[in-house]
């Protein structure tokens, strides 16, 4: 307890002591007096009663003068515990003799005096009971009651009541009372102390707390730390408790108010800062004008806009900012704003910058309305100088861009204009080369052809580049086989590489999906470009292309292509440069190696379009590796490799012989991929050893793949040695060569080599070659598929309408098509084309897009219009020199089936025709060429492929055919008997179509023969043809049934 509280307590204690002391004394005196009086009175009464009792009772006894009886009488009052306070009794007779008493050891003198005083009483006095206080010398203080016996005639009875008993009773009562009061006092003190504590402590805490609160810094209050626990709250509901509660409530209120106030201040401050920052950071100069047009506020933007410190302008007129010529306009603006008629007056004017330059400003004047009286004007000043300049620059840019566009369009049209004559040059050169020429002429023309090709390449590059420039380079995604695509590209490049004596190899990782979705043409362009460069800059060694998967999902795959050469390399400082347009690593290289230098630029663009990037790693003198990545979709199209063939190849042991390690690796991977057991060796000698060892083990190799170009013992040499060993007789051999097939084919036949493949090999090629060689698939007609440049599908009797206005191109196309066996009709323009088409029936229309009077698109639309409602559909292929993205779409939109890019090359047109006219043999009308190329009775797998793998559908088709043939064959017989050509043609055509659909090419060919005969009108031999067909069908029927059963 602290000084304050104890003071309070001390005061209370003083009061308590005083009160209790006074009370004690007062009550003691009072009680003593009362008690003394009462007891005395009681004793007196008692004594009187006893005295009277004895007086009455002893009367008779005394008269008999029997003192013993009197003694017995008085004794009973003194018997122990009888009557308290009776100290003595004595009886004196009338003579004054004490005849009975209770004194021991003797009668005190005072008693005798009492008796004497009795006798000296008057007669009246003697009749009354007398009370007097007697004190004995030997001790004792008594109330003596003297009662007369028989009006004192007989004597007196004296009863002595002990006053000391009264005193001691009073004393003990007073002591007890004082003790009680003392105890109460102590309890009171304790209670008071506790109460004081209860009151004083909270009060003191409150005081302390109030002091602390008063002296504490505002931070404590603001943090709201005046929580309830710090406040000495009394839980009592007494006044102190209420005070404490009220106090704590007050503290909370104060804290809350301070908090609110602080928050409000903070909000105001924040809001103020918010708006201030808005204003001060505004790009515009914000100013406030008073009614006199004087500036009362200028935002800091003034410094940046006009270069003046804002303060400098305070109190000055806004007009001083403006150019004198524009001051009037501003003044008018101010006046209007002050009138408050309208808000948002704006005026443009020139202001003088501190550096002396003139700035174009726009001022927006808004009045500040308060109680409808305009107090001031807020001016928003914007520097228009830069935006004006920007506007001018934008306009200039637009002009420049327009000029650039024009240029690109010019280039595009120029390239078109270039292509057209190039078409002529190349086409005519090729045609001329097919004619009989003198060796000199042929040499010259060959040079012309090569030059023209180079020129065309350059033109194409430029065209692509211009497309890049004009942003028109786009991809054309389709499903494609990556391995075939790359393989095809490698073929052309392979010749160049082998010419230079370089090894060209490519490897595609097994996890690379077979069928992708992307633009194969553009991918091929990139690879061709990179590989071409690699070949170009490599004198010795090899060029290897690897494809691996960077990342893979079910729908997309990122492939990593790497083209590695062993060429001259690229110095580091040039590595980035080479991707820039028109640049090569060295200007000298341009002279040395030629080229436009656009290839990498185009490639870069294409790679980026494919979602990838391109980069180079190089070491000067050691070679370079060009990397690029590209994203493709993963096609859901099924693989061409049939499971049956794979099944047959599985588990076969293969020996690969190649001196080039890269090739060995690639071959091993490929073969392992098909679950074959490949072993690769580096030379012919090693191959022989291995072959003999295997034969000796009893596990001879089924297949050997031999590289032709090997040191010491070349492929053919090895083949010869193998053939000479009788134990190796059963082995099937495939040779790989970089050289041309024609010169070696004879040798191949001599040595019993099954296939001769040109490097770099395509996977599918190798697969097919192995499958054929091991007689696990239908053997191909031709010995070497890939090398047959001068053999190919023929389109004999294909009726072609050529719509071409250009004479050169006409001739070129006629020649090309005629060579393929087509029947060509020429139309000069669209109108003619339409007329021809209406007059005759054509299998194909080759439509030049750009023709006078009616262009290719219009014509196509008209044809398709006319075809509507009929089952007629004439194939239309566009020929265009545009070769631009969108041409294809436009062509297809017009109703064309495909398009060719000019100049039309014979190979290209051949491919197109093959694709269009005979896609999987479904187009029966123009299948003559393909029909004769087959002699298979029934190809189940192909038939199933035709049904897109649906066996049930195939089954239904077979059943339908067998049913149908039961009707159609008799019909055909009847028609033949009647010599009804039309009927024969119709029925034969129907049968042929059905057979083709069933993939029974031999039968279909026989049906086609009948059809041809009927169509030609020459019905000689028709009976023989019918018989052949009937015989064939008879043998086909069980095969079909078997096939159907087998599948079940």
């Amino acid at each position, binding site marked *: 307890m602290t000084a304050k509280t104890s003071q309070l307590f001390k005061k209370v204690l003083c009061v308590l002591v005083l009160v209790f002391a006074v009370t004690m004394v007062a009550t003691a005196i009072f009680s003593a007096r009362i008690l003394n009086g009462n007891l005395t009175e009681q004793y007196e009464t008692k004594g009187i009663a006893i005295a009277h009792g004895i007086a009455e009772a002893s009367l008779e006894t005394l008269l*008999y*003068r*029997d*003192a*013993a*009886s*009197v*003694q*017995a009488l008085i*004794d*009973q009052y003194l*018997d*122990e515990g009888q009557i308290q306070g009776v100290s003595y009794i004595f009886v004196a007779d009338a*003579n*004054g*003799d004490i*005849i*009975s*008493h*209770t*004194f*021991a*050891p*003797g*009668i005190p*003198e005072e008693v*005798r*005096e009492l*008796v*004497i005083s009795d*006798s000296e009483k008057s007669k009246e006095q003697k009749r009354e009971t007398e009370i007097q206080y007697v004190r004995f010398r030997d001790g004792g203080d008594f109330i003596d009651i003297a009662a007369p016996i028989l009006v004192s005639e007989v004597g007196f009875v004296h009863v002595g009541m002990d006053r000391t008993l009264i005193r001691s009773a009073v004393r003990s009562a007073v002591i007890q009372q004082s003790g009680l009061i003392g105890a109460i006092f102590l309890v009171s003190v304790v209670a008071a102390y506790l109460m004081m504590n209860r009151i004083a402590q909270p009060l003191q805490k409150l005081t302390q707390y109030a002091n602390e609160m008063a002296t504490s810094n505002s931070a404590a209050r603001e943090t709201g730390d005046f929580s309830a626990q710090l406040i000495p709250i009394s839980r009592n509901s007494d006044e102190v408790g209420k005070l404490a509660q009220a106090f704590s409530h007050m503290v909370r209120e104060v804290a809350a108010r301070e908090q609110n106030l602080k928050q409000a201040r903070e909000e105001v401050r924040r809001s103020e800062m918010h708006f201030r920052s808005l204003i001060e950071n505004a790009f515009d100069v914000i100013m406030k004008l008073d009614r006199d047009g004087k500036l009362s506020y200028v935002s800091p933007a003034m410094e940046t806009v006009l270069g003046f410190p804002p303060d400098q302008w305070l109190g000055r007129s806004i007009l001083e900012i403006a150019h004198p010529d524009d001051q009037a306009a501003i003044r008018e603006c101010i006046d209007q704003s002050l009138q408050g008629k309208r808000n948002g007056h704006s005026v443009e004017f020139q202001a003088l910058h501190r550096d002396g330059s003139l700035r174009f400003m726009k001022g927006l004047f808004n009045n500040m309305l308060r109680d409808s009286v305009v107090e001031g004007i807020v001016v928003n000043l914007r520097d228009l100088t830069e935006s004006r300049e920007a506007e001018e620059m934008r306009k200039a840019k637009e002009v420049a861009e327009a000029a650039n566009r024009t240029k690109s369009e010019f280039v595009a049209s120029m390239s078109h204009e270039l292509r057209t004559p190039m078409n002529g040059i190349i086409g005519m050169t090729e045609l001329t080369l097919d004619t009989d020429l003198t060796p000199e002429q042929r040499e010259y023309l060959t040079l012309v052809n090569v030059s023209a090709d180079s020129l065309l390449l350059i033109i194409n590059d430029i065209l692509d580049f211009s497309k890049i420039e004009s942003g028109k380079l786009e991809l054309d995604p389709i499903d494609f086989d990556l391995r075939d695509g790359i393989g095809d590209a490698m073929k052309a490049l392979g010749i160049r590489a082998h010419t230079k004596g370089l090894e060209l190899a490519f490897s595609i990782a097994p996890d690379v999906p077979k069928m992708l979705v992307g633009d194969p043409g553009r991918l091929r362009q990139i690879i061709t470009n990179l590989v071409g460069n690699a070949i170009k800059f490599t004198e010795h060694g090899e060029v290897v292309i690897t494809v691996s998967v960077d990342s893979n999902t079910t729908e997309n795959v990122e492939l990593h292509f790497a083209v590695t050469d062993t060429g001259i390399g690229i110095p580091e400082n040039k590595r980035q440069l080479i991707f820039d347009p028109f640049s090569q690593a060295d200007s000298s290289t341009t002279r040395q190696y030629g080229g436009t230098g656009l290839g990498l630029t185009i490639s870069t663009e294409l790679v980026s379009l494919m979602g990838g990037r391109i980069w180079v790693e190089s070491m000067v003198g050691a070679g370079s590796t060009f990397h690029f990545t590209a994203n493709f979709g993963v096609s859901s199209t099924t693989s061409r490799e049939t499971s049956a063939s794979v099944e047959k190849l599985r588990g076969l042991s293969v020996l690969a012989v190649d001196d080039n390690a890269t090739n060995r690796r690639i071959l091993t991977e490929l073969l392992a991929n098909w679950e074959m057991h490949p072993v690769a060796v580096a030379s012919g000698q090693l191959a022989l050893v291995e072959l003999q060892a295997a034969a000796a083990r009893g596990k001879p190799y089924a297949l050997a793949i031999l590289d032709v170009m090997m040191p010491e013992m070349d492929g053919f040499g090895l083949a010869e040695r193998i053939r000479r060993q009788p134990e190796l007789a059963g082995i099937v051999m495939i040779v790989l060569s970089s050289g041309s097939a024609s010169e070696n084919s004879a040798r191949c036949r001599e040595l019993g080599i099954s296939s001769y493949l040109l490097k770099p090999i395509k996977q599918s090629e190798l697969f097919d070659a192995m499958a054929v060689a091991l007689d696990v698939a239908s053997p191909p007609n031709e010995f070497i598929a890939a090398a047959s440049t001068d053999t190919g599908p023929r389109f004999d009797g294909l009726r072609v309408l050529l719509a071409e206005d250009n004479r050169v191109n006409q001739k070129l196309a006629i020649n090309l098509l005629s060579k393929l066996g087509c029947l060509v009709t020429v139309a000069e323009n669209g109108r003619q084309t339409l007329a021809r088409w209406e007059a005759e029936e054509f299998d194909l229309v080759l439509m030049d897009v750009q023709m006078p009077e009616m262009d290719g698109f219009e014509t196509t639309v008209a044809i398709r219009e006319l075809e509507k409602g009929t089952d007629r559909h004439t194939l239309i292929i566009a020929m265009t020199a545009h070769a631009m993205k969108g041409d294809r779409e436009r062509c297809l939109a017009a109703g064309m089936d495909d398009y060719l890019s000019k100049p039309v090359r014979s190979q290209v047109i051949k491919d197109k025709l093959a694709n269009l006219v005979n896609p999987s043999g479904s187009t029966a009308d123009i299948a003559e060429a393909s029909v004769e190329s087959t002699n298979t009775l029934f190809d189940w797998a192909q038939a199933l492929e035709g049904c897109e793998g649906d066996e049930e559908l195939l089954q239904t088709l077979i059943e339908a055919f067998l049913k149908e043939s039961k009707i159609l064959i008799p019909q055909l017989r009847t028609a033949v008997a009647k010599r009804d050509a039309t009927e024969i043609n119709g029925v034969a055509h129907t049968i042929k179509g059905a057979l083709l659909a069933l993939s029974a090419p031999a039968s279909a060919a026989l049906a086609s023969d009948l059809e041809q005969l009927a169509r030609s009108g020459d019905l000689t031999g028709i009976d023989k043809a019918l018989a052949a067909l009937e015989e064939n069908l008879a043998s086909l029927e069980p095969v079909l049934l078997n096939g159907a059963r087998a599948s079940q």
Partner: protein
Amino acid sequence: MRHARTITFLSGWAVCRTSRFCGLVLVLTFSILSRVGAEDITVGMSAAFKGPSRGLSIELYRGSMACLEQVNADGGVHGSRIVIKPYDDGYNPIPAIDNTIQLVEKDRCLLLFDYMGSPTVTRVLPLLKRYNDKYKDKDKYKDDLHPVYLFFPFTGAEPQRRPPYDEFVFNLRASYHQETTQLVDHFVGIGRKRIAVFYQVDAYGRSGWNGARQALAKYSNSETSLNESVREDGNAKGRANPLHHKELQMVAEASYKRGTLFKESFSPQVEILRKANPDAVISVATYSAAAAFVRDARDAGWDVPIANISGVDSENLLALLKKTGKASGKDYTGNLINSQIVPSYADMELPAAKQYRELMDLYKPAPPADLLNEPYVPPRYSFISFEGFLNAKLLVEILQKMGPQPDAARLPEVVESIENLDLGIDVPVSFGRNRHQGLDKVYFTVASEGSFIPLADDGWLRWRK
């Protein structure tokens, strides 16, 4: 004790009135009554069997029992054994009253017998009066009432010898009044007129005191020595009693409270009396106080003749003094006179004394063991036990005289008809309608060589003055 019994008694009645077992209780009551009548005759005794005066009571009881044992052994009185029912009152009046109520109402004794002590008996008297008053109006009460008579209390006090209580009390012994009167007579006769009295300040002491006082008053105070003594005694007294100047007065008196123990000092009393220079001291006290007084007087070198009365129990007094003397090597037994109300049991010529001694030796009656709180060694013979013996002898005579059907109501008639009955003490015992005290003879003895021996008249001369 008494209260508890009363309550039981009353509550028994309460039960009777309210209960169907009322009849059963009545039957029990009758059976008890018939048993009392037919078999034992019970007499009630209340006396001090504890405390400083217990020797008196015990000796009294033993003496009576010596007689009754013999009587009962001989077949009782009319075939009934006489049984004493003793209670202790500790020489205090209130227990005595309680015991009396118990004996009358509960024990339904035929009569009360051998009560000891003046203060107790004096206080019992009004109770007896009430019982007998009630009996006189017995028609008013349905209760089975009978008169209650107290036979031969061991006290020489006056109240039971005077109206209105003398009617229910029969005394054998002479009164203290008679004893002190004769002592005064003898002292005055040998010239010792200055008599002081030492007494117990109660009815007993007062009886003796009063006897001495009245006896002295018979003599005229013609001698100067007395006057001088009066003068010496104090002016106040002289002034106080101008009328009695011719009569002899006790020169001093000193008192003590009943129950004062032997070990306490009695020097104040000795000083008070010695100051008056008396010729003789008459002591009306019980033996402890009397012995203590003698001790302190003799220790103070005061060899004044001290005369005790019968109530002191001379044998116990002497025993105490001898014991004290043995301890201090001093003889306290000199100048000790003791009045007796029975002849000396040593007088073998008396047939009663002879019989007493024979029976005491024969039976060696034991004190009532259940009432004692400390061991008691009884003297072989004593005046008190001899008195008790005589009391019992007379009681047997009375009951014998009453016939086989003892009836309390017929007791006065039977007792009052006794005239000149020889109890073997050489003095005839007579009762009458107005005489309810059988003997008046006082015998004097003197302590000599360890015992009290009879003091012949000429024997007094040795203290002649």
